[in-house]
């Protein structure tokens, strides 16, 4: 009898799912994220409840038996939300647990390729937004950055700013998934977008935006103009929140 696993879409939920798979030696037919699955005559629907403790156990096992790198890569790949990533992760771990850290060097292995590529896409976007994210100063002296990333990267992006903007109050808002990461007293909190207060910009905000536009327009060399090149580095899909491209 094959089962469908349903989980809440969080990384903790996913690790709990992994726990079930390996404890019960039960590889699901389908893994369904978030929403309630339709009842199905052939498969049994099993809902996985996120469990921090089980998730931690899985984390420790991955780090101890495979490597830290495997864990990181898996996490980043997971954030891609690419179709099939959970199933690939199961086989990746299965082989990883068997062969240890050297498994990651089998560059031709189907799951290694899949997970690496997904992680790479996520890493690339994280790196991009370390540069392209734009904060706006709000009346409450909070820095607020809206963006629409392809992947679910608010958390790793926020981690980049944790030390950098340690003395400020700030938040990052994924407008596509409507979730936010808020920095408060040295901690990062994930909150649903609905819980954010109304956005009101500080008075100085306009001045800084126009100073930045002024700088942007003056730094380019006319005789070297190359808008195609510019677009290839800074695709149009990111322009919506770019102060210099509004």
């Amino acid at each position, binding site marked *: 009898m094959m089962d469908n696993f349903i989980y809440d879409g969080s990384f903790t939920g996913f690790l709990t799912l992994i726990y079930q798979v390996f404890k019960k030696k039960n590889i699901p037919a389908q893994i369904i994220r978030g929403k309630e699955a339709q009842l199905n005559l052939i498969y049994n629907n099993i809902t996985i409840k996120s469990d921090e403790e089980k998730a931690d156990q899985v984390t420790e096992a991955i780090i101890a038996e495979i490597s830290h790198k495997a864990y990181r890569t898996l996490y980043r790949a997971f954030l891609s939300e690419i179709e099939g990533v959970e199933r690939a992760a199961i086989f990746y771990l299965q082989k990883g647990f068997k062969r240890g850290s*050297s498994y990651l*060097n*089998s*560059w*031709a292995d189907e799951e290694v*390729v899949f997970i690496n590529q997904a992680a790479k896409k996520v890493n690339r976007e994280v*790196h991009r937004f*370390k*540069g*392209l*994210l*734009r*904060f*706006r*100063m709000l009346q409450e002296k909070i*820095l607020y*950055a809206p963006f629409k990333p392809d992947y679910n990267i608010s958390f790793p992006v926020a981690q*980049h*700013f944790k*030390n*950098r*903007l*340690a*003395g*400020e109050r700030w938040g990052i808002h994924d407008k596509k998934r409507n979730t936010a990461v808020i920095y408060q007293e040295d901690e990062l909190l994930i909150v649903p977008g609905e819980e954010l207060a109304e956005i009101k910009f500080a008075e*100085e905000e306009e001045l*800084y935006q*126009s*100073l*930045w536009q*002024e*700088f*942007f327009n*003056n*730094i*380019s*060399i*006319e*005789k*070297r*103009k*190359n*808008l*195609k*090149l*510019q677009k*290839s*580095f*800074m695709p149009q899909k990111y322009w919506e929140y*770019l*102060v*210099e491209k509004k």
Partner: protein
Amino acid sequence: MDIEEKLAILADSAKYDVSCSSSGSNRKNKGGIGNSAPSGICHSWSDDGRCISLLKILFTNECIYDCAYCVNRASNDRPRATFTPDEVARLTLGFYKRNYIEGLFLSSGIKNSPDYTMELIYKTLYLLREEYNFNGYIHAKAIPGSTLQLVNKVGLLADRISVNIELPSRTSLDKLAPQKKAEDILKPMKNIGDKIVARKENKQKFRNTPKYVPAGHSTQLIVGATPENDNKIVNLAASLYNNFNLKRVYYSAFMPVKSDARLPALNKPPLLREHRLYQADWLLRFYDFSAQELFTEDQPNLDYRLDPKLNWALNNLHKFPIEINKASYEELLRVPGIGPRSAGRIVAARREGSLSYLNLPKIGMVLKRAKYFITCQGKYQAGIPFQEEIIEDRVIKEMGKKDLHQTSLFSLGELDDG
């Protein structure tokens, strides 16, 4: 004059300096604002496709010198402005908080005297580091002719210092920048290089040795304003890396800003030549090439049709094809289309078993160009005979016009694989 106007003038005046790298430093945020990412980050790309990482401005463009190639030369009629240290500091912080920039690149024309200007740069950095507790990236210019002591004070606050040589020979310098002496440029460069080495040695003995330009020092050479050939330029770069401990040499295609009998009349900057020089420079720094290998007596310039590594391989075809499963890391690096990343992966992957031709793309290797120069499990799979003219013909055709427009032109922050 309000700050917006000053910014417009002093950003416009700074744009010909090509360096914008923010990499190589690892300053931590200690109870203030900012830190620096060792790998460098681009925050935007200007309309000319160049990475914007730093707030790149001049402190002043009211310059008393009259260097022939420079927009800011005293005899050029253009708007002039000068910031105050506090204006620069507040701009930097305001931009940094909003994540527009990685930090500041502060250069300057020479107002009143070299030391007067250098002192203002020092004050600005002092303000940022000590008063505002700013730990983001700072690249400062050392003004030729200022006292070394002042340069060193700046070095203790900056992540990078640069002194621009601009012209690749003494003769050209005398001719086009008569007020600058070659010694005014070379002395501070040597001093900075020595300090960096001394600091490294001290650091092994004393843990609390203060940082001194942790991201190193760099310079810029203008290409095409003077008659020096590529051989001379690349050799100069190599000797700067070797003798002065330089981190980077930047090349800037010459663009006439004001007609001058001492300068060639170009209607377009020699961008392709600049691009090839950057590629040659990569070969020096990451591929273990020496300058001599890239030129011959009757070919003192790079072949602008081909990237220099490919060109070298075609001229040294007797060293190829090499066997992927046997070649050393160093040999792999010499294959066109294989960069440090692919070479590393090949070496790691073949420990797990012999690599077949079909495995290569799976480990992320691009075969398009490399296939002409390798064998895999003893087989040559390029589909053509291994003969110089045929390979050369094929490669040039395949590149078509594409390579000439390749985006790597300004992607200086990243290692391009190949």
